[in-house]
């Protein structure tokens, strides 16, 4: 057993709590009187402190502790929330996040004490006036650091006799034979200790510096499994005195007490007397004890909290348990391999389907079974996909804080409104969209929202609004970043493009707005007049675009000068298995993602018109350019040119195109296989898939053709 096995959990949970704190402090800034929010903050800060302490990260613990003190005063109504305090709190959260990051990288919290922030926190406390509680809390902090943690011992009426197993009995005898001294030690952990087993482990380690642990009650295994209440007893064989051992044990944080004496047959009875000697020491723990109950029962007022002790703390535990048991943490790699197996299964099913077709369809029973198998594999695929899906909440919750900071930095009042945080996407996709979204939001805040005086002139509300909306649309998820700012100045972009030599004057004159706007997604193209450290270094939108495209998604912009712009990101729900339309071009089979096809049309060759050298059709009032897939892939069409053509109407953003194919096979669920980096030079082929008969069909990315 080792504390490091808890490190992952610690990191995960710390991040969660920090995120929670960020969100809550933000809410507190809006509504500084909200008791629920304050309690929420208090609870998160307290848990975080406990966790940091348990893991032995002293600096992180100290900082959290000081932060908690501030909240404690706020909760008790001794201190009013003010903007400076909020700023300090955010700095504090950033510093804590710094600790967590350092811990993740090095398993160590680093040596930054963040003293300025601690001072600022203490300054917040001093500002409140002369209530006596505050200095007390402040003094508690240093006292805590010294590790002199003692606490009132649980009153134990009678101590059960120490039961020795045969092997332990033997060890005792051996030690006595070797003329070593035996001690019986009773170690108690604090009642709010989070990782008792980890504490016990540290105790074991401390003891092993001085001697050997011969027996334990409960057994060491049970102690490691956290199967003990608040105390456990150990028999230690040592060559030296007991005192340094006890001191070493007490130095382990969250150990409330360690006491003991020489072990012999009588010492078991003698222990009762030793019990009463320990003095009650409240200095730091009173603060902590009254902390625990309040967050549990939100209605509990501050004075009432003082009197409550153990029962609420005990009540807290069962409340937390069921939530833990309902979820299982699974390594993403295991899910990947599960997904691969499902892919294989679908290929195998497709093979079976095509084999059955070859056999002829007169065997009804076989067909029934195959249909059943198909529905099972489709459901299995969906379930596995759902397991891999996580709400985008985990990425977007940090944005309100970011916008708040930006708003201060840029001196523009900005409000962020988010909807659809619960929208789910594949875990791998969610991990990747954070940065692109951040770029877009920064972009909106910096370039989109106008300076306050301009907003006033235009008669817009003083506070700029940015909206982040996410929703599911068929097999896609759409995330929109919308602002009510200036919109994109197409003329300015055009001017810049000519300046930079991206476009010639002639090209610029004929280019339409959407072409100009698409220039923004080119590398090193920024329209901000001044380069700020927020955005404007020209590394924004092109990164967004390439990132989203690497996730098989697309970015689209709608803008109206003076009214604002909307960036929408469209992402596929899953990357591995898609519904595709199988087509024949020449003598080759191709798959086209069904999601990009709007309709399938039967068009007579006579309906083709030529506009500016391009073939188009006029369909229900809109002119749609045609793309002949046989020419694109370079094969001879197998179709009689006189016959009607099968045209797939593909859609990309608001642009349409008609893809002419020779023949339609039908819809099929396909598994996308990468073709490897050696041969992926072809832009419009996004991958390959294995058909039921083992043949390979390439997947055409209609978006790349439009």
């Amino acid at each position, binding site marked *: 057993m080792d504390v490091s096995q808890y490190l992952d959990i610690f990191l995960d949970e710390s991040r969660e709590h920090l995120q929670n704190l960020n969100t809550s402090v933000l809410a507190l800034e809006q509504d500084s009187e909200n008791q629920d929010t304050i309690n929420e903050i208090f609870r998160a800060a307290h848990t975080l402190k406990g966790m940091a302490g348990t893991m032995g990260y002293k600096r992180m613990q100290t900082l959290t502790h000081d932060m908690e003190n501030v909240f404690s005063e706020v909760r008790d109504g001794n201190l009013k929330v003010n903007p400076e305090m909020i700023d300090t709190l955010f700095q504090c959260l950033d510093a804590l996040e710094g600790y967590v990051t350092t811990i993740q990288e090095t398993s160590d919290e680093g040596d930054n004490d963040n003293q300025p922030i601690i001072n600022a926190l203490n300054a917040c406390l001093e500002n409140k006036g002369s209530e006596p509680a505050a200095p007390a809390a402040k003094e508690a902090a240093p006292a805590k650091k010294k590790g002199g943690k003692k606490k009132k011992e649980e009153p134990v009426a009678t101590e059960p006799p120490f039961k020795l197993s045969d092997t332990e009995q033997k060890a005792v005898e051996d030690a006595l034979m070797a003329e070593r001294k035996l001690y019986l030690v009773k170690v108690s952990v604090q009642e709010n200790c989070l990782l008792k087993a980890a504490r016990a482990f540290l105790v074991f380690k401390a003891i092993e510096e001085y001697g050997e642990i011969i027996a334990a009650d409960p057994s060491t295994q049970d102690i490691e499994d956290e199967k003990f209440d608040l105390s456990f007893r150990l028999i230690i064989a040592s060559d030296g005195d007991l005192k340094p051992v006890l001191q070493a044990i007490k130095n382990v944080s969250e150990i409330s007490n360690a006491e003991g004496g020489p072990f012999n047959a009588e010492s078991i009875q003698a222990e009762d007397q030793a019990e009463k000697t320990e003095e009650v020491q409240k200095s730091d723990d009173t603060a902590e004890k009254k902390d625990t109950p309040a967050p549990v029962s939100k209605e509990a007022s501050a004075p009432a909290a003082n009197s409550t002790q153990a029962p609420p703390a005990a009540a807290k535990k069962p409340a937390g348990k069921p939530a833990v048991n309902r979820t299982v943490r699974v390594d993403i790699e295991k899910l990947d391999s599960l997904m691969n197996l499902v892919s294989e299964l679908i290929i195998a099913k497709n093979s079976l389907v095509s084999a059955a077709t070859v056999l002829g369809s007169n065997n009804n029973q076989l067909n029934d079974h195959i249909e059943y198998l198909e529905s099972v594999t489709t459901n299995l695929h969906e379930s596995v996909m759902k397991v891999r899906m996580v709400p985008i909440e985990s990425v977007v919750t940090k944005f309100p804080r970011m916008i708040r900071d930006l708003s201060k930095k840029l001196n523009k009042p900005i409000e962020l409104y988010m909807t659809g945080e619960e929208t789910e996407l594949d875990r791998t996709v969610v991990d990747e969209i954070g940065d692109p979204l951040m770029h877009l939001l920064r972009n909106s805040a910096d370039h989109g929202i106008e300076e306050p005086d301009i907003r006033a002139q235009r008669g817009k509300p003083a506070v700029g609004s940015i909206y982040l909306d996410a929703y599911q649309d068929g097999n896609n998820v759409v995330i929109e970043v919308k602002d009510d700012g200036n919109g994109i100045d197409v003329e300015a972009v055009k001017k810049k493009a000519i300046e930079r030599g991206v476009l010639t004057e002639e090209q610029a004159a004929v280019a339409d707005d959407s072409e100009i706007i698409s220039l923004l997604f080119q590398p090193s193209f920024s329209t901000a007049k001044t380069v700020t450290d927020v955005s404007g270094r020209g590394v924004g939108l092109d990164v967004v675009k390439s990132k989203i495209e690497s996730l098989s998604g697309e970015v689209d912009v709608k803008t109206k000068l003076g009214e604002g712009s909307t960036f929408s990101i469209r992402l596929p729900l899953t990357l591995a298995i898609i519904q595709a339309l199988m087509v024949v071009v020449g003598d080759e089979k191709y798959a086209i993602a069904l999601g990009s096809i709007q309709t399938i049309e039967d068009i007579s060759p006579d309906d083709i018109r030529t506009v500016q050298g391009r073939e188009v059709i006029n369909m229900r009032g809109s002119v749609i350019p045609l793309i002949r897939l046989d020419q694109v892939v370079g094969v001879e069409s197998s179709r009689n040119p006189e016959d009607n053509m099968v045209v797939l109407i593909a859609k990309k953003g608001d642009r349409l195109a008609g893809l002419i194919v020779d023949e339609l096979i039908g819809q099929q669920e396909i598994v996308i296989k990468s*073709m*490897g980096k050696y*041969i992926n*030079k*072809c832009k419009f082929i996004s991958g*390959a898939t294995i058909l039921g008969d083992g043949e390979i069909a390439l997947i055409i990315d209609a978006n790349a053709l439009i």
Partner: protein
Amino acid sequence: MADELSTIINDTTQYIVIRLGNEQYGIDIKYIDNIVRMQQITRVPQVSPYWKGVINLRGEVIPVMSLRMKMGLENDTETKDTRIIIIKIDQHEPIGVMVDSVKEVVNLLSSEIERVATTDNHSDGYVSGVGKQEHGLISLLDIELVLQDM
């Protein structure tokens, strides 16, 4: 005896001898994952002409190139001897190489290999040495160099 054997093992390299036209080439066996018979190849549009396409090897999609065209010889004519050698170098994805036929496996002592400096000459550019055997000369292909040059 055992010592003698280990020196021989240490000192020899195993090569698979393949035929392209009238010439024999050797490929270090450590790069070879598998040798498969000719099978249906799916053409990939708009790639360099030496790419034959992709094949389905037990559920994996593997690109296949023509070694003849890569080395500047005329296009392959498929016969019953045509084989696809699946090459796998360390972490890279596997790749198929189409050859006229696979002849044998030879053990070459380092004394039987004459290193040649790589030249700019197109077809010899990938030959790192020549192995001398009683049946004749074997040009030893530096397959890593072939795959780097994409």
